[in-house]
Every structure is written in structure tokens, then in C-alpha cells.
């Protein structure tokens, strides 16, 4: 079992699916996260290296302050790589020179766990504060989006409140 930011990721699950255990991460975000961390689709959580887990935890703890990754240069069909004895510093320098600036990364704007729940709470609190219909319905514990209340409405009656759990 791997624990990342308080969430348990079972070993036997694919990493791409296990990441959806975080509140605020769905399948699309999980796919993008795996691509960012160079985790292939069929990688299980038990196959993740400690470096990948550390990177994942570091990224998820603060997505907005993560370092933007440049677009690395890719070999053309006629590219001949330099010999293997080339020093790493030289390779890093060349890669940096040829890397292109990264475009806007949608992953930097994601909010997970407590931040995501706070956003939902704040939105409902705002609706209540301005005295809107939506806010009143949340306060009464009734459906908000125009559903029938003569019958059904069980979920709204169970879950809707001003300090609704996200």
C-alpha cells in the first residue's frame, strides 16, 4: 500500500486508476498526471519507483507552484546521437538550448482534497450569502436544479445543506 497525502493507493491497482481515489481527480486528470510523471497506462502502483511517488506527492501537495516542464527536443529520423561518454552537463546544456517553452499546463490549476471541498463549500456559502434561490434550496435541504419534490428528492434531502460536504 502506498500512502500519498493521506490517501491509500492499493498496490494491485493500475496507477492511472488509483489516482482517481483523490477527491478532485477524475480519469482525465489522472491520465494527464500519469503522462506528466512518465507512468505508462498499465503501470501498477507497486511498480512505481520511489522517485515517481515522491514526485507525485510533491506535485499534488502544491500543483500551482510546480516547476513547468519544457518541451524536450525529439530525434528526427536522421539524428545520430552523441557517444555515450558525453558528460551529462553537456547533454543538459544542449537539451536546455533546444527545449521549447511549455504551453499553459492545465494540471497546475487542479485542486484536490481539502482545497476542492473548500471551493464547493465556498460556492454554496456565497449563494446563501447573496440570498439566491440556489442558496435557499441548499438551506432547506431540497433539490436545487429544478427537480420534482412531490416524489423522489431523497438525495437532496439527505445531502443538501449550507455546509454541504463536497
Amino acid at each position, binding site marked *: 500500500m502506498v500512502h500519498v497525502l493521506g490517501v491509500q493507493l492499493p498496490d494491485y491497482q493500475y496507477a492511472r486508476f488509483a489516482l482517481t481515489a483523490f477527491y478532485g481527480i477524475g480519469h482525465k486528470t489522472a*491520465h494527464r498526471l500519469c503522462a506528466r510523471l512518465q507512468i505508462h497506462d498499465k503501470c501498477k502502483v507497486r511498480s512505481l519507483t520511489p522517485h515517481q511517488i515522491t514526485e507525485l506527492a510533491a506535485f499534488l501537495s502544491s500543483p500551482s507552484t510546480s516547476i513547468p516542464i519544457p518541451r524536450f527536443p525529439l*530525434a528526427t529520423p536522421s539524428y545520430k*546521437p552523441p*557517444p*555515450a*561518454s558525453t558528460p*551529462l552537463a553537456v*547533454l543538459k546544456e*544542449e537539451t536546455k538550448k533546444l527545449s521549447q517553452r511549455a504551453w499553459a499546463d492545465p494540471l497546475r490549476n487542479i485542486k484536490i482534497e481539502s482545497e476542492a471541498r473548500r471551493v464547493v463549500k465556498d460556492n454554496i456559502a456565497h449563494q446563501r450569502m447573496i440570498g439566491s434561490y440556489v442558496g435557499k434550496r441548499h438551506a432547506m435541504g431540497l433539490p436545487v436544479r429544478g427537480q420534482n419534490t412531490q416524489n423522489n428528492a431523497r438525495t437532496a434531502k439527505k445531502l443538501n445543506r449550507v455546509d454541504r460536504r463536497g
Partner: protein
Amino acid sequence: MLALSVRQRVACQLFASTSSSPLVQTRSYATQPKKGQIVKQASQGFKGKKDTFSGQMEPAKKDKKMMAFQPLPVSQLSHPLFESDRPDTLNLQSFHPEMLTRVVESQALKFPHNDNDPFRIFGLPRNILVEFRLLSKPCSVIRSVTIDAINKLDAASEKNSKESRVVFTGPRGCGKSFLLLQALQYCNARDWLVLYIPRATNLVNSTTAHTYDMRTRTYLQPIFAYQTLQRFLKVNAPRLEQLRTQTEIEIERCPPVPPGTPLVELMNIGFKDQCHAPTVLDAVLAEIGKQTTFPVLLAVDDFQALYCKSHYRDQHFSAIKSYHLSMPRLLLEYASGKKSFARGAVFGALSMSNTTFPLPLELREALSLEYDRSYGPYVKRQRELVNYAHGLERLAVPGSLSVPEAASVFEVWMKDRAVPSKPNDELFLAKYSEASGNAGAFVWKGLLSSMSA
């Protein structure tokens, strides 16, 4: 007493564990609970599970209990109907390279079984693996196209592999993968160095680790390279032990390998650390490309997958092209002639049944394959893929078996007791006509799916 038919064998295999013997009688549901193990049984009636959030009760799921039927444990299955060892009724000659002439056309020959069997070590395409599990012995029928392929291999053994880059084409189920296996066995028996990739889709479908490398500017696949190196050494060990490096080889964070080092020692560097495996594999193939002692066969099934878009994504979520992945790039370089073996050939087999990686336009045009749709000049062709597909030679596998070839196939399955009804000429001709002679349809949809009494 009749032994189990093929369909019953298939049903048993669904419950069998994965082992090397053809029929293993293991059924987990037959085992009794161990001593001291408490088996909890769900109580009858409505009993709810408390929902902590709302306080409402939910009905519990009822456990299934097998009251009337308790299967026998495996040790009590002593009836001859369950016997797994059957007498050998398939008396076939062995697949020997000297025998392969026009005389043995339409005859079924069994593949030899030895310690360094390339099938067992490299693996097989999925449909052929299932077929070989059903048959009592892996075998195949020698067709006229087999002799053509073998003649090409004999000619290629003296030439550079740049001049012998052949792709087997044909409709679905015509026998391209089988033909590639026959070529592989022939080369292995003739003392060639063989490298076989049974499922090239596994290189591009994001099932193996990938990592960006600054030096090669590609995404390395270290685990796949490591496994390929291991399998290559295991199959070709006696030949590789005779070869030595001809130039100095540099490997990252390792001292350079001097010329004259045995190739096996070079490969051991790749085994010690997986991250060196891609560089070592590249170097090994370059070295065996220079030597002229043994010809080399590079055989790739699902060849079209190398020319398709991969399922990998880079850090910015753009799709990674296949030639930016280390293993497909290596195979594409040998297939296009950018790298070559001094003696040998590159053989590929298309897979027309794979819808995830269909035949791309660039490869279709390079092989001059007909298509019912016409692609005009305004459809974009990727320049790099056109480059990689340039110079490939096509070997068309006939879409239908000839009657003698189909008769041999029928005889093999008949002797293996796969045909449920009485095997006679009428059944044979009926199934042959229904399949229009297509080998895959004849076996799977004709013989094995037959419900006639």
C-alpha cells in the same frame, strides 16, 4: 472411452492454472477450507448494514451457497474420461530444414521441441498460442508460399539485410503469422541468429515503462529492451558465445568495452542494470550486423503497429510518435535499411485483425496494397513514416488454402479428436466451402465451432 473433445478442453483450460502441461485438473472451488479457518456464512433473512452517514439500513448481499452440488476433489477424478495423457495419434514428421522442398508441400510437420525453443522463449502471438495449447503438438502445414519464403531466406543468407526486407501481406486468417513462425524455425535450425518480436503492439500500446533520454532524444523502454536481450541470449547462446566485439563500445556511466570482448560479456552489462539495456541492445545488434559468421533474421509480427501512432503520452499530453520510442525506432531502422546486417533478412507479418492498430496509409502505399477507398493527394502522409516504409518488399500470402493443404489441416485436427462429428469428405468440403478456403475461418469457425452431429 472418448477423451475430452477440444471444446471441453478449452472449457477446462478456463479453470486450469497456467502451467506447461496441456491439461491440468485444478479447480479452486473444489478445495475444502483449511483447518482452523473459520468460514463465515451469511445469515438468512433481512439483515441490514448500518449506513453511518444517514442512519438508513441497506439490505445485505446474500452469499451463494452450493447446497445440492459439491464438485469432487481432483484426487477422486479417476475415471478414464478425465485422463490428461492421451496416446500420441499425431505421427508427424519433424520440421527439418533439409526436408523443406516442393515435395513436402501440403504436408503437416511438427515443430521441433528443444531447450532453446524460440517459441517458448520469445513467445507467440495470442491466437497461435491458443491453437498450440489445443493441439497435442505444435505443428503447421507446409504451403507453396512457405517454400517461396525459404528460398528468399536462402538467397538472403549471402546478402545484406537491406536487400531482403520482406513483409507478409494477405487477408485476415490467411496464415501470415504461421508463415513467420515457419521462417523463424527454419532460420533457427539453419544456425542463424534469430530475434523475434511476436507482438509488436506491446511496444506502442503503453504497457511498458518509458523514460526520456537526453542523449538519444527518444523515450527509452528499458524493461522491454532488457527482456528482449535476455530472450535473444537464451535462444542464440551457442552462436553468441563465438562472437566478439569489433570496435570499442561506450556505455553510460560504465568503462568502455574494448574490442575483442565476447558478446555475451557485453550483454551481461545490460543484465546488471536495466537502464543500460537499451544502449547494450543497440550495440549488440550493431556488432552482429558487422559480423559475417552467422546470418541474422529479425522477425516482427503485428508489423503495422510500428507505423501507427502510439498510446504513449509525453509530459504535455501530446501523443508520442512510434519512432520517438527506442524499441520501435530500432526495428524501424532495420526495416527501412538505415541499419542493416551484413548477412540476413528482416521479415514482418501484418495483422489485419487488430483494430486498435490498423494498417496505416503510408505502409499500405509502400506495399502497393489495394484498398476500396481511394486516398487522394490531399490526405496527409507523414514524411517520416513514408521514409521508414521505403523499399519494403511484399510477399502476398494466398487468401485461401489449396485443397491438399486444407486436407492436411483437417487431418491434423481430426487425429487430435477436435472434430466433434464424424470426420468425412462431406464435412471437409462443407467446412472448406463455408470458409472459402481461408485457413483461420476453416479451423476456428469451421472445424472447432462445428455443432453438427
